[in-house]
């Protein structure tokens, strides 16, 4: 198991949102986390990445207990978090954003070669290198966010609602990108509201409700159902 989350409890100060969840992501898997708004999905990602310190429970990555590790350490270990709010440097150009993402990487010498790899994967970004990130379209911003993550060569990407704010076409592009990345070996833990797509591309799915996991099932099985209202 690449990532194991055991009985995780976390929240924001007094407001406890996760009431003991357990999940796992294996190498090269795409795992989806779905559920109603306010169920705690974003919180689960943030607690895993270390943006919130869990109150109880464990986050075990590559066999190491990293529960209380800060985001920087998790980043160095190979986890990358792309939040729903998309923290891009809006006033900086696309290339500067990519540089900023690489800023704390340990293998600084390899920046240019990695960058070329990114251009191959995201030709649209290559075209807009000097454009300020704030002026990119929704889909392009998501691509930039993912590209910034890829520069760090993560083994696991935590993506929070990549479809939010995107047209179906743009979202399709993002999904394809995630699948490509996954084909190259990166595992993905995906929080997503568009559950149809999530079921389609994920090997396994966890369903959350009110801070707890109520179901674990394969994406295929869920896709075969004719309705999903009971999951929400």
């Amino acid at each position: 198991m690449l990532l194991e989350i055991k009985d995780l409890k976390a929240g924001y100060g007094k407001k406890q949102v996760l009431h003991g969840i357990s999940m796992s992501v294996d190498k090269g898997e795409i795992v989806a986390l779905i559920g109603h708004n306010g169920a705690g999905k974003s919180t689960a990602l943030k607690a895993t990445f270390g943006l919130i310190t869990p109150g109880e429970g464990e986050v075990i990555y590559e066999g190491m207990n990293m529960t209380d590790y800060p985001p920087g350490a998790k980043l160095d270990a190979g986890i990358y978090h792309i939040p729903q709010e998309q923290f891009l440097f809006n006033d900086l150009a696309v290339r500067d954003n990519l540089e900023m993402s690489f800023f704390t990487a340990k293998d600084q010498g390899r920046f240019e070669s990695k960058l070329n790899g990114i251009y191959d994967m995201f030709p649209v970004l290559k075209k807009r290198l000097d454009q300020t990130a704030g002026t990119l379209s929704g889909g392009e911003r998501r691509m930039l966010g993912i590209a910034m993550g890829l520069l760090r060569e993560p083994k696991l990407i935590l993506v929070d609602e990549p479809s939010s704010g995107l047209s179906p076409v743009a979202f399709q592009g993002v999904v394809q990108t995630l699948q490509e990345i996954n084909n190259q070996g990166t595992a993905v833990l995906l929080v997503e509201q568009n559950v149809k797509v999530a079921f389609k591309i994920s090997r396994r799915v966890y369903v959350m409700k009110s801070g707890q996991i109520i179901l674990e099932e394969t994406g295929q099985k869920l896709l075969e159902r004719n309705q999903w209202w009971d999951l929400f």
Partner: protein
Amino acid sequence: MEYIYHIIIFILLYSILVQSLNLIMGYAGMVSMCHAIFSGIGAYTAALISIHLGYNFIFAMAVAFVLAAVTGGLLATPFLRVRDEYLIVFTIGFQMVMYEFMLTARGITEGQGGIPGIPPPQLFGIEFVNPLTFLPLVVVITSICFAFSWRIIHSPFGRVLKAIREDESACRALGKNSLKFRVIVFGLGGGLAAIAGSTLAYYVTFVSPFTFVVDVSIFIIVMVVLGGLANFWGPLVGAAILVGLPEALRFIPGAAGVIDAVREILYGFILMLLMLFRPQGILPERAGRILAKFSGNEKPLQEDGFEIEAIGERYSSDPKKSVVELKDLSKSFGGLEAVKDVSLSLPYGEITGLIGPNGCGKTTIFNLITGYLTPDKGRVLVDGQEITNQAPYRIVKAGLARSWQDVRIFNGMSVLENVMVAFQEQAGENLALLFFSPRRVAEKERRNCQKAISYLNLVGLAEKANELAMNLSTAEQKLAAIARLLATECPVLLLDEPTSALDVDSVERIIKLIKRVAEQTRRTVLLVEHNLDVVRGLVRKAYFMSEGKVLAYGEPSELMANPKLAEVYFGID
């Protein structure tokens, strides 16, 4: 000995000044950098009236009070629509302007030289001239001012002030016209400061602009913060320390000269250290004391703790009637059409749901109904009456009350106070009634307290009535917020994600509670929820929205059988 009386007089006069700022800053939460000016208005008014008109000092002080109160009220009116940081800057500006006025309007204030020769106060043949005779007068004046403040603070009016300080928006959603309260308290604070200033003028028999410089305004702030914001005795403590201590230190040989030199530096340091290490000051605020004499002894109105009053019937008991109607409501933000031609109606006595994917416009609808947003087009009607575009507090008076997704409980107040502040038409919120009809106010308070405890019993929080709201768990805070909402006694309730972020058991508890309340009081409820278990458990019918439009209306089972809606909710491939 005379020297000691002199110091005590100064401590008492400053304590009035500090208490008056405590009302504004500690209880109502507004920072004022011009408070010295109000005492200046008091001093100059009293001086001019006594010297030029020869009227007696009580009359002069009364005029000074009124003049300063009106000035404070007028000052508050324009800038209270403006946020806190700007308020601070505005009051600095006022301080500067008025100080200049005192210096240069020689025709009125006689400029830099000031006004000497103020005749000493006289009463029943006694002339109050030296510290010995002045001290009793100051004690009486201070006692009156403190008693006046006490009455205001420990009253429904004071309770609203605290709620405004905690969360003004949430306070308005309980039907309180917060602007009115802020204007009044700013005026009262100014008036009391004028009493202190005029008394000082009579004591020193001399007024000069230099007594009312910005340093003094800051000095008053330091004292109020040091003594403890929103603590009734804090001003006395703050004044005693910062006025008395330097004087006491004079007795140390060689200290006198040093004290004067470092005084200003010392005050600045104290302020910084306080903010770093003990921002609540020496005496902390004590919540829950307001009703200490009521709670614990009050029996709820009924055995099971709930007075069953069909509040919902205030409008009509005709089950076919729509209590709330939205007609063609629209709202855009820039290019984004958040709500487009939405028409919906809430049937009497039912819980109606409003569901839809993220960003579909549910919260915008809420804010449009409750007056937090202005619609571009369309109307909102309650019981046939138009309430479109009215201020939030008026919406409550029309009978609609809302809850908040992020709870917005008043953290610095007790659970009981939170509920009690929500009652409408409280006699004690009216200052005239507060001072001239104390029995009526007390009776209303007792009745409201009983009702409040009943509501707390209903939600299961009666034992925590005197607990500070901030110490409750999230689930308990949500229950307290429901009790608070019920206390508005509004027939229509708008619930915004009441179970968000709660665990399964708490969700169950809240579902049962809402159901029970709605049924027993025959209230009409609009429920926005993402957790469909809650929707299924509570609503008879729901509106399904997407991208600002209403797509469907029907029973949950009908909606969930609709493939088009499933596509919208679960995404298109």
